[in-house]
């Protein structure tokens, strides 16, 4: 949508001009430039104060979040930067106040995750990125700076990325997931999420009008093709790491189709169908296979694929319209109209009626539930 794109562009410009340096530096594991130089004693006092409150997240998360929402960025950033510095001996007269227990660090991470989500709801993206960076920092320390695929950190970042994608902020999602992919290598779920973001960016891309003139497809397609290549690389790697990852295969088939590689698209789609996937993936794989068959003018086979899709998802609008188009292009206008009327007769509006509707947003939109699971896990 126009509004979303404009907003996103504005955010990208804002972030480029006034990047939340604290969060970005923290993510890289180095120290934040301090606005105020604290003595070692003052630093430890600040840590003590922070952790005393942060630990209360276990018993009273709402109050804890409320308390920290009043803390300045400088204070919060300073706390984490102190702990992120390489550990060195403190002067003997200072009692160490840092927390290193993984369960406590994860507790703090979810606390800042909540603050990040609250900021995002208020469209405060710089604050969201700052708090998200803090949460990621604590999760990194909880994993002793070496997070594994499937870890809480990995799963939490994926949920953050998917939430951003579903909210129209694909650019920020891409940045966060790319960073996660660099730091937590070989996680098929991160690769799937990253591939999804790149695929959606590619499918949303429209030709620009440089200098008020239409760009030739050869040039206009370059940014789109670049996104597709990145999507393909991420999804192929995800499938290689986890061959049972059906969604990655479905998306890979679609990416191949978008790149015009119909042979590989059809091969992967039929591979998905042969494995008897769930209804949503059967629907999507059938649609993709049908599209490939239609392009090669195998209209009967394409129609059967669309009928299979309707069989999997009886309210699947995209499949009805694809089937109607087959009739229409074959000169069977009355049949096409009948299919459309049949679709309208069902009157399906819920977002679950057609997986294609949520496909560009990442399919699984249960992010609230996932965040709740992470909260509950760390508070046990």
């Amino acid at each position, binding site marked *: *949508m*126009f*509004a979303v794109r404009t907003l996103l562009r504005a955010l990208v410009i804002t972030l480029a001009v006034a990047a939340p340096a604290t969060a970005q530096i923290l993510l890289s594991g180095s120290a934040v430039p301090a606005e105020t130089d604290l003595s070692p004693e003052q630093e430890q006092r600040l840590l003590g104060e922070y952790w005393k409150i942060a630990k209360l997240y276990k018993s009273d998360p709402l109050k804890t979040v409320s308390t920290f929402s009043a803390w300045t960025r400088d204070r919060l950033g300073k706390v984490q930067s102190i702990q992120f510095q390489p550990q060195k001996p403190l002067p003997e007269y200072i009692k160490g106040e840092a927390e290193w227990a993984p369960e406590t660090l994860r507790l703090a991470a979810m606390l800042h995750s909540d603050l990040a989500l609250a900021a995002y709801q208020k469209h405060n993206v710089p604050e969201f990125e700052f708090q998200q960076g803090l949460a990621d920092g604590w999760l990194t320390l909880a994993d002793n700076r070496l997070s594994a695929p499937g870890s809480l950190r990995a799963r939490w970042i994926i949920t953050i990325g998917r939430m951003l994608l579903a909210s129209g902020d694909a650019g920020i999602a891409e940045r966060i997931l790319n960073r996660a992919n660099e730091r937590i290598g070989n996680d098929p779920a991160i690769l799937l999420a990253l591939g999804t973001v790149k695929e959606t960016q590619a*499918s*949303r*891309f*429209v*030709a*620009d*009008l440089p200098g*008020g003139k*239409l760009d*030739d*497809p050869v040039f*206009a*397609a370059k940014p*789109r093709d670049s996104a597709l290549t990145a999507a393909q690389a991420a999804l192929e790697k995800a499938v290689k790491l986890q061959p049972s990852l059906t969604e990655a295969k479905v998306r890979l088939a679609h990416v191949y189709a978008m790149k015009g590689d119909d042979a590989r698209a059809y091969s992967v789609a039929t591979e998905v169908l042969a494995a008897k996937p769930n209804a949503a993936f059967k629907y999507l794989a059938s649609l993709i296979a049908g599209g490939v068959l239609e392009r090669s003018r195998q*209209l*009967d086979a394409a*129609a*059967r694929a669309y*009928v299979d899709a*309707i*069989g999997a998802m009886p309210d699947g*609008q*995209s*499949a*009805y*319209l*694809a*089937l*109607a*188009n*087959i*009739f*229409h*292009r*074959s*000169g*069977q*206008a*009355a*049949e*096409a*109209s*009948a*299919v*459309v*009327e*049949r*679709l*309208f*007769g069902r*009157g399906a*509006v819920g*977002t679950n009626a*057609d997986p*294609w*509707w949520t496909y*560009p947003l990442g399919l699984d939109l249960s992010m609230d539930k996932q965040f709740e699971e992470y909260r509950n896990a760390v508070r046990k």
Partner: protein
Amino acid sequence: MLSANKRVRVSLVAAVVATIVALATPRAQQAPPRFTGSTDAILVDVGVSRAGVAVEGLTAADFVVKDSGVAQTVQLVSAGGFPVSLLLAFDASASVRGLPLEHLKTAAKAAIATLRPTDEAALMTFSHSVLLRSGWTTSRENLTKAIDSVTGTGLTALNDAAFAALALAPKPGTRRLILFFTDGDDTSSWTSAAALVQAARRTEAVVYNVALDSSRNSGAAISRMLETRRKPGDTTQADVEKWMTAEPTLYRGAALTLLTLETGGESLRATETAKLTATFTDVVSRFSRRYVLAFTPSGVPATGWHPIEVEVKGGGDVNARRGYTR
């Protein structure tokens, strides 16, 4: 299409397909309107204007119609003799929520109010889903209720909605007007822009597209380019069509404008949603002042794509569908 279809038909042996079709209402199976002169007659809905003002009072002798470059003998069929089937197809995605949607509803009611009692209308809305809020009816009360029920939510399945609008058969013997309104690009359709333009070539519907002048998306920019460069020898439209076929998603923003050009409709712009009422009633008014020409093709190939050229002696801007497929 009016003419018999001689292309390869989909045999579709699957019983499920038959079930899907059989479960639909039988209305769609009815014959399309035909000119009485011949079962192979082609009807062409033509709008003529000079300096933006509709030209009325023309006769058949004022028109020159060529089919595949071959001049045809045309008859003028009284446009007023045909009831109008007006399909209102509105963007009801999240972006139109609030005051714009209220303006849209007011405009829709005003458009319906300008129809004659014998004219019918239907209401389709689209967000991620395409919904037929009201099927074809002459009941203004039912249409008003349907308009009042519209709420804004979700993404924009523009191409899906446009295809559904083209495919949905109206009552036979009517002139079909599709009035489209959207404020953005397609974001969630399965139907490609290229498939949509091809579908437009197979229908007799006339598409009028109303867009907001404030739209600054790529689609709006391409559309403006197509609308303003319709001079002889200009290849912009042909280029976009060619590229759209090669790249189904890249140039999708031009789909609706191409739809209006293919069907002989017009693209109109409203500077703000508060002015939609004037724009919508203007569309119905323009449509009522068009001409319906009929000819039985002669000296042309029996099958395939038939480009149509319509000119008015004495000059004028002509809007007519660009051809038909047999």
